[in-house]
C-alpha cells in the first residue's frame, strides 16, 4: 500500500490568511484613497503610487540582500505604503519624500526589527514623524482641497478667532490636511468594513476616539470638532489597530487606546504641536510589551481546589 502523510492535528484550517487580512485593510482604505485623488487631483495619485511601490520595492530588496524568504506577497508592505501616503501632505514634494518615508518605514522600522510581527513601532507613524522632523517645512504645509494648490491651515492649526470649517466639511474631508486623514466618512466606512470582516475589533478605535472626545470636553474644547480634526480617524482606525504594535488582549487594547487618547488630547491642548496622533502612537507602541505583560488572560480552572 502507499505511503500516507503523517502530521500533527488539527488537519483543517480556516480560510483566513495574513494576505487576506491585509487585502481587507487595503479594500477598507480604497474609498479614502480615491477621495483624496478627487480632492487633490493627480498629485495625490502620484504620492500613493510612489509610496506603495517604494514600500514593496524596499521590502523586496531587503529580503533579496539579506537572503530572507520573500514576504512581499503578504501585502503588509502595501498597507504600510498606503497608510504612509495618506499621511503625507498633498504637495508635489511629497512624491519624493514618500520614497524616503518608505525607506524609513520598511527598512529601518520594520525589516531591521525582524519584519512582520516583530517591529516595535508603527512603520507609517514612525516614518511620518521622521519626515516631519527632517523636512518640517515641507511636512507642515497643507493646501485646501479642490483648489489648485492654495495653502491653507489644517483645522487644528487655524488661529483663534478665524472661521472654522463646518462639521459637514470636516466629515466629508473638505478641509486642509494630509491626503487621507481628513475625510471621516470614508475612514469610518472602511472601519466598519474591517470590524464586519473581523479584521479589527471595536475596542481601540472607540476607546481612543471616546477618550479624546471626553478629554477635549473637559479641556473646554468642542469634542466633535476635535474628533473630526486632524489624524485621529485614520490613526485610531487604521494605525492604532496595527496588530504588531498593539496589545494582544482585549483588556490590553482598552489600556492602550485610553493611553493614546490621553496623550493625543494633551499634546493638542498643551503641546506646541498642533497634531498629536503620530507621537502618541509611537509612545504607546513602546509601552505595548509592558501592557502585554500585565494583561494576560485568565486561564481556565485557575481556582482553588475544594
Amino acid at each position, binding site marked *: *500500500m*502507499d505511503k*500516507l*502523510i*503523517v*502530521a*500533527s*492535528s*488539527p*488537519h*483543517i*484550517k*480556516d480560510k*483566513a*490568511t*495574513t494576505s*487576506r*487580512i491585509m487585502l481587507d485593510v487595503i479594500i477598507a482604505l480604497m474609498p479614502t484613497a480615491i477621495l483624496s485623488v478627487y480632492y487633490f487631483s493627480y498629485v495625490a495619485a502620484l504620492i500613493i503610487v510612489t509610496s506603495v511601490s517604494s514600500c514593496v520595492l524596499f521590502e523586496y530588496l531587503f529580503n533579496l540582500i539579506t537572503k530572507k524568504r520573500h*514576504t512581499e506577497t*503578504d501585502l*503588509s508592505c502595501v498597507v504600510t505604503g498606503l497608510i504612509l501616503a495618506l499621511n503625507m501632505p498633498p504637495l508635489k514634494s511629497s512624491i519624493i519624500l514618500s520614497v524616503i518615508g518608505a525607506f524609513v518605514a520598511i527598512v529601518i522600522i520594520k525589516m531591521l526589527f525582524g*519584519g*512582520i*510581527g*516583530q517591529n516595535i513601532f508603527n512603520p507609517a507613524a514612525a516614518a511620518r514623524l521622521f519626515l516631519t522632523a527632517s523636512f518640517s517645512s515641507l511636512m507642515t504645509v497643507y493646501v485646501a482641497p479642490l483648489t489648485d494648490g492654495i495653502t491653507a491651515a489644517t483645522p487644528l492649526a487655524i488661529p483663534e478667532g478665524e472661521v472654522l470649517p463646518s462639521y459637514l466639511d470636516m466629515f466629508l474631508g473638505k478641509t486642509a490636511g494630509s491626503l487621507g486623514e481628513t475625510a471621516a466618512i470614508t475612514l469610518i466606512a472602511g472601519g466598519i468594513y474591517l470590524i464586519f470582516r473581523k479584521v479589527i475589533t471595536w475596542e481601540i478605535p472607540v476607546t481612543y476616539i471616546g477618550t479624546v472626545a471626553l478629554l477635549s470636553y473637559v479641556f473646554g474644547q468642542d469634542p466633535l470638532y476635535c474628533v473630526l480634526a486632524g489624524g485621529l480617524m485614520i490613526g485610531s482606525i487604521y494605525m492604532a489597530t496595527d*496588530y*504588531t504594535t*498593539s496589545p*494582544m*488582549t482585549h483588556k490590553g487594547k482598552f489600556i492602550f487606546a485610553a493611553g493614546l487618547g490621553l496623550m493625543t488630547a494633551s499634546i493638542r491642548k498643551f503641546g506646541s504641536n498642533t497634531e498629536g496622533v503620530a507621537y502618541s502612537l509611537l509612545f504607546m507602541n513602546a509601552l505595548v510589551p509592558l501592557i502585554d505583560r500585565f494583561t*494576560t*488572560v*485568565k*486561564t*481556565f*480552572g*485557575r*481556582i*482553588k*481546589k*475544594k
Partner: protein
Amino acid sequence: MTRKFKNIKGGVTLPHKKGTSEISTKILPIPKLVEIPMQQHIGACCEVLVNKGDYVYVGQVLGDTAKFVSAPIHSSVSGKVIQIKDIILYNGSKSVSIIIEPDGKQTVLPDISKPDISTKENFLKAVRSSGLTGLGGAGFPAHVKLDTKDRIPEALIINAVECEPYITCDYRAIIEEGREIVKGIELILDKLSISKSYIAVEDNKPAAFTLLKELTKDEPRIETVMLSTKYPQGAEKMLIYALTGREVPMNGLPIDVGVVVMNVTSVLALFKYCQTGMPLVSRRVTVEGDGVADKGNYQVVLGTYIKDIFEYCKGDNQKTLKVLCGGPMMGITAESYETPVIKQNNAFLFMTQEDLDFIEETACIRCGRCIDACPMGLMPLTLNKYALAKMTEELEKYHIMNCIECGACSYVCPAKRHLVQSFRVGKDLLKKAKVKNG
C-alpha cells in the same frame, strides 16, 4: 445544581460535514486477520495472558494488568493467536500486539454470563471487566472515572455533543439505540446513587435531541439539553462549563466540581455488557472522506485493520493521501493502512488532496485570534514563542499544561502557524525539565 446553560469560552465555528448522519449503520465482515494492541487506554499497558498458538474465543481476556488506571483487553474474534509482536505506538511508547487469525465462527467464550451488579462495588468491578474506556476518544478507563470514592456526584453528564466535523457515530448510536442508552443512564444513576443526569446535544442534531427528549419524558432524573454548536464543546471541561458554569480546577477532575462525564456510546457499551456479559469487542466507527466511496457508519470488531475498512468501503488509494483516526481537529494520522482499530477510534477519515492544505507557516502577526479562540484561556501565540525558544519556565508560567490540544488556535491562525504541534513539544520539554530538576 444551578441551571445556567452558557456557551463555552472562546471556541470556533467549524463546517459540520455530517454527511453520514442519515445512513444506517452497516456491519463490517470479520476480517482475515485482527491485531489487538495491549495499550488501548490512558494508563498502564496490559500484560499478555495468552500464548502463540492458543485458540481464543470472542470476549476472552487477552491482556490485563493490576495497575489502577487500566482496563482489560478482550479478543474480538474466535480463532488462533498466530503472533505476539512488539510495536511502537503513535506516541512513541512501546507496546505489544496480539495477532489473531479468525476462524469466522465468532464462537463466544462459553462461561460468559451477565455480571453481578447488585452492589456499587460489584458494579464498578463489572465496569472494569467490561474493558470499557472513554469511547469519545480520550480512552480514560470508565471504572476509574465512575469510582468517585466517597464523593457522590451531583450530576452525571452524558456527552452526546460530537463537536468534531464528519463524525456521526454517537449520533447514529442515539438514533438506532436510544432506548438502550436511556436505560444505561438510569442504570448508572441507580448504581451510583446519582440524582440527576443531563444529556448534552448540540443544536445541529435536532433529531437526536427530539428522540432523547421523547425517550426520557417519564424520567424526571434525566434532562436533555440542547446547546448551541461550538467547537470544542465536547471536550469534558468545556461541556461541564457550558452546562454548569463550573470550571474544573487545573490538574483537577470533573468530580472536583461535583460531576462525572460519560460519552453516550460508552453508556451504551456499558449497558450492553450489564445485559449480556459480552465485553467491549466491537464498536461503531464513522468512515468518511473523499478517499472512500461508501461513506457511513460501520460496526467493526476491534483489531480490524484500516485497510480492511478501506477496501470494504471502496477506497481509492491513489486519491487517499492521509488517514485520520478521529476527527479533523484532534485526530491522529495513521502511519499505514496496517493500523488496527482500537477502542477509542470513533472515526476514520480518508483525506484527499482537496482536504489538505500545505500552506507554509509564516510569521505571527500578533492578531490575537488564537487568544479569542482558546477555550482554556491561554495565550497560544506567547506559548508558541516560548515553546520554539525552549523556555520551559515561561511555558509553565503561561500554563502550557492546561492546553487540551483542541486545535482551535491553529485552526484560526491566519499565519498558519503550527501552534498545537509546538505545544506538544513544549509540554514534553517542560515534563523533562521538571524530572531533571526533581
